[in-house]
């Protein structure tokens, strides 16, 4: 007999939002406080997993229409590209650059190329985790 998941689905709507916010927060906080692209990515993935638990794979695919392999590849390229930028300045690979900027509205912000690298990590982690879960989940 099938049971309905109304209670779970309702809670999920709120909870997923909370998790995603938290994931973004933890991603950006990484450089100064615990966190970073890796945990952020995994949290994002778990938010999607929660959606899959509450609804079903097809529905979630419709909501988030990403090809996760490409996401992985993009992440890899981003991380590699960030690190490789230093090649063009003929300084050792992976030399990061950072500076402080005064952005309107935002105030004084530090922009660090490591953040871009971390974004690559984030994308790879989300991509791979979701690839794995989705492929296993879809398999008969």
């Amino acid at each position, binding site marked *: *007999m099938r*049971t309905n998941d109304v*209670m*779970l689905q309702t*809670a999920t709507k*709120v*909870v997923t939002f*909370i998790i995603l*916010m*938290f994931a973004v*927060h933890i991603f950006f906080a990484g450089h100064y406080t615990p966190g970073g692209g890796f945990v952020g990515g995994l949290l994002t993935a778990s938010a999607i997993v929660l959606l899959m638990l509450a609804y079903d794979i097809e529905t979630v695919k419709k909501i988030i229409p990403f090809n996760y392999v490409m996401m992985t590849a993009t992440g890899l390229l981003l991380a590699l590209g960030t690190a490789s930028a230093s090649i063009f300045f003929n300084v050792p690979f992976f030399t990061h650059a950072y500076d402080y900027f005064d952005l309107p509205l935002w105030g004084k912000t530090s922009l660090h190329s490591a953040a871009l690298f971390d974004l690559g990590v984030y994308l790879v982690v989300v991509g791979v985790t979701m690839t794995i879960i989705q492929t296993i989940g879809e398999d008969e």
Partner: protein
Amino acid sequence: MRNSLREERFSIETTIVNILIIILISVGVIFSAVTALGLVRLPDVYTRTHAASKSSTLGVMCILGGTFIHFWLLEDHFNPQLVIAIAFLFITSPVAGHLIGRASYMSGIPLAEETVRDDMKIAIEKKKGEQK
């Protein structure tokens, strides 16, 4: 260094806050202990679910409240994550409890011998009848 300065200036307030924290955390700890007791002593999975989802949620919320107050008022560190965590637990714990309870029932785990009523059984049979 920062702590000591602050303590000198607001020692009375500090004491009050500390008492508040002690109360919150004590309540939380007691509830948590009760949860454990419940989980160990209660006869079947359904009653244990009851213990786990209600008292433990309350317990942990109290402890988190205490922690939040500690960091906010004593260390001047407003931590929104704690607030969110409290809200989160408030939303999810009952849902989780419900899910486990229903899952146990659906998978056919027997009720304790002392059970007097089983409403779910009636509901399910009714639904099955409708489907036929």
